[in-house]
């Protein structure tokens, strides 16, 4: 058994040279922060996690965590897979470790406020303490000002920070003010300040000389874990349980008397809970953070001013002054379009202005009074075309050259519209663009104009009937079709080559209202896939068979469905790294978000969605232009100078279940799903050689912490949680770019008790079908059996009943001897068996693997009495698996319990009575030292893998009468709770183990 990769919380990070060193589980990972490349991953501890790193001026590195510490040279970390020979074990938890000023000594502060001083090779030089202050610390730090002067700042559990002089073993200050435990304290390099943070969510700045509390910084909405002074002690960065990192300016007033801590920036950097580590590189002004989600995130602290040209704003007055022409009273900017050369804008009096982004000058391009009070501006930035339309269906087209000189202008009046109030434009093909004109009058037709890119001639005009309740919001052209998004979650498809004057309609695509974007993504199996976003946050990927569609019926299917975590969704695209990027508004902020890897790319306080705004691609990225308080603002969004992440994380909280899509490999590995306490389900991929994980999607349909997720065949997956939530998911893996996942069906609920959990489920398929029988067990002891029909996508309840009053933890459907048994394990330690053969409208196929329809009437029956139950464990059976294939007429049941035990029970089906006889059993009382959370059979049911909360992974041989241990290994994943196993074509076996993080194992015996 060998661990190939480990993904879990990152506890500490440090910049040094051009590298980031990160404590990642028991490893130190070294990254080049400019390229994002992983240089090396070196194991430093056997079991303990690296909680802190210190680097000396002469090239040594100290790692410490729990009771372990190790010192080696930086090159040892770069060149070796392990330095385990350097690991030392102390008697007490190490709160902090640091090198001396000259780099020749190591200080280790333990949680009982004792400092052990050693040299680089571990010879102990001295032990220092202060009298009478030996109670436990949550945090501490060491500040070596010189070889003689070293300060210790110790954060106690009672709200005090104890500052003491190491060599004098004397107390300097006992700083009191915080409430609750002190989670971090640190001294500035210049020796002026001490900063501390605690349970009380405040940051306090103290005068190190006098011990006076200078100021308090409030802002974080949860506990604060770490602080760091940077930029010559003029700023502080903090990280918290609220998932943010914040920058604080230390503002000293002129006479130097009063000091203020002012929050200058806030960044959402990690998911769900806890940011542990932070460091800043003041030269480049970037921060690196690490969190419980396993992500290593780089944050640009000067994103909006890196080159000094990222943002700008203009008041009407400023534009006027610069142009040196008088504006009318009340003249304002009505519309704009950004190009690579700059901006084109129109005023409410028909002045068409140009702002050159190179010469930073405003010029009046022309004046056209027709486009005064009502004007809509649009355009195609990549073709340098700007389009103006008024409400009388006059249109003006301007084409510029690459540097912004006006090349050509054309204007038209389009007949047949009573009024024109909407104008959208999109690229049609290489040579032309397509323009839509829309009237507010529902009887007016929709007019499309195909216009030549170069000479701006109208090449063709198309008129279509306007469907009921159709208000266009966005447009996309694909081949000879135009797709319009509308309100009421409707898409209209207009066939420019067909004879139909009616569009094809897809109504009520998502639960939301306004469709904000439709964009072509890729061709899969000869059909186009479009991404569709809805303002209410829903987004879908749909495939449309345009050729087979007509106005009577649109042949389309939803490949993917999801919802953004918060805010309004205005659009989305796939970037060059195959990541799905969404953008929109959350309260007063405009945001761009990396949906694939779940982090924010940027946000701009622009005042909210009701502003006039637009996001323009300009060849080098995007430019956001908006009007706020009648001023015009722009913000350029560029590829970040440094990679945004060094490592993508997974879930922010514990992974409760893992399921590998075993039926076929996907890109040198497998797709897998994880179900987490953080209420999300992820679809990801692992590489079978490197163990690298690629995130694809994070599904947010559940609103409560997950219990289970499981692939039930080659494309269907089920997940379940509290609030009786159970969803059937359909995974599409035909596309080589990415898999898609959509919700196919939802199980009906019976109550609105939020605590009613679906604990587990199992299925049995109908032969050659996607229809199946589903058994669900609940936390109120209820057992239900359902049929799922693939044609209608509906569940029908077949059996309902209750075991007793205790919670049911697991369920399996097993068939032997042409009987179908439902086996469940409650918290009372029993295995309970029901025979449901005669209660379902199906019979078993000859091989018992599948069901056949027997056309009995489909109605709900009460659950029969169990046919047998027997006590196996002292308390809850946490996990179980069954094997009905190895022996005829026999079900082997393997169970793992809260009582540290595992058991194998053999059930034989009596040939005559069809009753169950428990024939023999094997029970290992101390299989683990803590709860057994997951077991799984593999190697043709000859071996059993087991995980337990004590972080041991064990493998048992289960071929004989007794369970025989074959191997055991320590896993670095805490709260070990789930596992799945897949056997590869070369018959080697891989296993994913989940808990707080995930690790991939290769098994060979």
């Amino acid at each position, binding site marked *: 058994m060998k661990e190939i990769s480990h993904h879990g919380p990152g506890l500490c990070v440090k910049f040094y040279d051009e590298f980031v060193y990160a404590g990642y589980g028991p490893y130190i990972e070294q990254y080049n922060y400019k390229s994002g490349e992983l240089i090396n991953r070196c194991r430093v501890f*056997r079991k303990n996690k690296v*909680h802190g790193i210190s680097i000396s001026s002469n090239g040594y590195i100290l790692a410490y965590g729990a009771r372990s510490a190790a010192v080696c040279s930086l090159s040892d970390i770069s060149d070796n897979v392990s330095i385990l020979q350097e690991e030392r074990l102390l008697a007490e938890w190490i709160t902090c470790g640091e090198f001396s000023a000259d780099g020749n000594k190591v200080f280790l502060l333990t949680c009982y406020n004792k400092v052990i001083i050693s040299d680089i090779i571990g010879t102990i030089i001295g032990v220092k303490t202060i009298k009478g202050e030996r109670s436990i610390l*949550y945090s501490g730090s060491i500040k070596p000002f010189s070889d003689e002067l070293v300060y210790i700042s110790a954060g106690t559990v009672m709200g005090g920070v104890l500052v003491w002089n190491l060599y004098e073993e004397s107390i300097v200050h006992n700083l009191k003010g915080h409430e609750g435990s002190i989670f971090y304290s640190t001294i500035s390099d210049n020796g002026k300040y001490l900063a501390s943070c605690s349970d009380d969510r405040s940051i306090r700045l103290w005068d190190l000389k006098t011990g006076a509390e200078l100021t308090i910084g409030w802002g974080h909405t949860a506990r604060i*874990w770490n602080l760091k002074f940077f930029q010559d002690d003029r700023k502080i960065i903090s990280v918290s349980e609220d998932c943010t990192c914040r920058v604080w300016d230390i503002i000293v007033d002129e006479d130097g008397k009063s000091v203020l801590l002012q929050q200058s920036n806030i960044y959402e950097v990690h998911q769900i809970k806890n940011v542990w580590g932070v460091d800043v590189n003041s030269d480049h002004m970037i921060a690196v953070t690490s969190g419980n989600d396993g992500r290593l995130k780089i944050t640009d602290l000067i994103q909006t001013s890196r080159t000094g040209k990222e943002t700008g704003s203009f008041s009407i007055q400023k534009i006027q002054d610069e142009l040196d022409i008088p504006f009318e009273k009340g003249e304002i900017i009505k519309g704009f379009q950004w190009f690579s050369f700059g901006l084109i804008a129109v005023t409410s009096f028909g002045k068409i202005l140009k702002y050159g982004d190179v010469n930073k000058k405003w010029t009046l391009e022309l004046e056209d009074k027709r486009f005064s009070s009502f004007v809509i501006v649009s355009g195609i930035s990549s073709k340098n075309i700007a389009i103006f339309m008024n409400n009388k269906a006059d249109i003006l087209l301007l084409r510029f050259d690459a540097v912004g000189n006006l090349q050509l202008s054309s204007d038209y009046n389009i007949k047949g519209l009573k009024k024109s109030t909407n104008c959208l434009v999109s690229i049609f093909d290489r040579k032309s663009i397509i323009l839509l004109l829309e009237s507010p009058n529902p009887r007016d037709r929709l007019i499309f104009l195909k216009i030549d890119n170069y000479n701006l001639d109208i090449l063709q005009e198309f008129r279509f009937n306007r469907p009921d309740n159709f208000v266009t919001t966005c447009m996309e052209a694909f081949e000879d079709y135009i797709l319009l998004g509308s309100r009421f979650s409707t898409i209209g498809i207009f066939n420019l080559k067909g004879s139909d004057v009616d569009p094809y309609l897809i109504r009520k695509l998502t639960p939301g209202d306004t469709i904000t974007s439709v964009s072509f993504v890729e061709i899969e199996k000869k059909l186009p896939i479009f991404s569709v976003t809805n303002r209410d946050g829903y987004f879908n990927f749909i495939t449309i068979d345009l050729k087979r569609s007509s106005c009577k019926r649109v042949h389309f299917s939803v490949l993917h469905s999801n919802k953004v975590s918060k805010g309004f969704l205005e659009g989305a695209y796939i970037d060059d790294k195959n990541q799905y990027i969404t953008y929109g508004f959350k309260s007063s902020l405009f945001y761009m978000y990396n949906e694939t890897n779940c982090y924010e790319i940027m946000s701009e306080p622009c005042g909210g969605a009701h502003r006039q705004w637009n996001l323009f691609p300009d060849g080098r990225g995007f430019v956001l232009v908006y009007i706020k308080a009648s001023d015009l603002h722009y913000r350029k969004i560029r590829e970040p100078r440094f990679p945004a992440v060094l490592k993508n994380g997974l879930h922010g909280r514990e992974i409760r279940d893992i399921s590998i899509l075993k039926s076929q490999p996907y890109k040198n590995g497998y797709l897998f799903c994880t179900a987490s306490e953080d209420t999300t389900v992820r679809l990801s991929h692992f590489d079978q050689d490197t163990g690298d994980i690629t995130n694809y999607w994070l599904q947010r349909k559940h609103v409560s912490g997950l219990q289970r997720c499981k692939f039930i065949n080659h494309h269907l997956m089920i997940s379940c949680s509290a609030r009786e939530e159970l969803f059937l998911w359909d995974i599409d893996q035909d596309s080589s770019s990415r898999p898609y996942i959509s919700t196919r069906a939802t199980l009906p609920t019976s109550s609105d008790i939020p605590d009613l959990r679906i604990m587990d489920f199992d299925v049995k398929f109908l032969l050659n079908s996607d229809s199946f029988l589903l058994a669900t067990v609940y936390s109120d002891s209820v057992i239900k059996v359902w049929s799922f029909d693939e044609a209608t996508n509906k569940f029908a309840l077949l059996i309902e009943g209750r075991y007793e009053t205790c919670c049911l933890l697991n369920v399996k459907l097993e068939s032997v001897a042409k009987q179908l048994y439902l086996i469940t394990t409650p918290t009372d330690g029993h295995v309970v068996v029901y025979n449901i053969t005669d209660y379902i409208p199906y019979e078993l196929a000859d091989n018992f693997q599948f069901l056949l329809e027997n056309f009995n009437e489909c109605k709900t029956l009460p659950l029969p009495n169990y046919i047998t139950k027997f006590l196996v464990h002292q308390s809850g059976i946490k996990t179980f698996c069954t094997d009905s294939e190895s022996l005829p007429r026999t079900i082997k049941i393997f169970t793992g319990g809260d009582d540290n035990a595992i058991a194998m029970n053999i059930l034989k089906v009596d040939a005559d009575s069809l009753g169950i006889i428990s024939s023999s059993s094997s029970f290992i009382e101390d299989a683990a030292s803590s709860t057994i959370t997951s077991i799984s059979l593999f190697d043709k049911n000859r071996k059993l893998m087991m995980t337990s909360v004590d972080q041991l992974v064990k493998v048992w041989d289960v071929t004989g009468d007794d369970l025989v241990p074959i191997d055991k290994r320590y896993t670095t994943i805490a709260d070990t709770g789930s596992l799945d196993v897949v056997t590869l074509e070369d018959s080697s076996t891989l296993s994913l183990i989940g808990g707080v993080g995930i690790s991939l194992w290769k098994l060979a015996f």
Partner: protein
Amino acid sequence: MGKSSKDKRDLYYRKAKEQGYRARSAFKLLQLNEQFHFLDDPNLKRVVDLCAAPGSWSQVLSRKLFTEDPDKENTKDKKIIAVDLQPMSPIDNVITLQADITHPKTLAKILELFGNEKADFVCSDGAPDVTGLHDLDEYVQQQLIMSALQLTTCILKTGGTFIAKIFRGRDIDLLYSQLGFLFKRVICAKPRSSRGTSLEAFIVCMDYSPPKNWFPELDVNKSVTEFFEGCMVTKDESSNDILPAWVEEDRVIAEFMSCGGLDSYDSDATY
């Protein structure tokens, strides 16, 4: 979902309300006693309830030792001391102390109250704040147990019983092994009223018998680890001249026992 909203739906929570207990935890102690009967001993006189707020364990102790004792004469030299960082409203027959159990002065106060006589039974239901760092949380919990144990070694009579709340994480077997140096029998017990989904359990340490050549002595300048030196295998660095290399430490799996009977309510169920 907040923890409190869950608790409200819990059957034990309602039952505690009905029976006048301040917390549902009372049933954990009652169910432990159902299995081990440590509170049914007629000779039980002096007991200490560490980390006792809001006080439901103390209520159980008070009822067992006083209210339910048929022999009223027997109660005169009985004494219950409850200690917590938090203030506690008074409970009949219970002396409450607001103090930190990790502080040596706390021990002196308890000893004084017992008139320097030894205690028969010590329990601790303490739990520190969790940070979310699993290894740190487990360590701090174990240190709180070691603090409780430190007090216990100074006041518990030979043959006495000590019980404490534990979280069964990755190093729990290390703790079992350490407890084995002080007690003849160490059992890990899980009452049915403690949720199956939580790692919470209780160590029931019976028959206190410290090593012959070890004499517990509280010293404000010593940490808990240093206190147990010479009793357990742990060694502090002051006695070394180099930082000790990593060693696999002794680990023992304690016997597991589920308490409370299968007919009692299931704390994981939704009613």
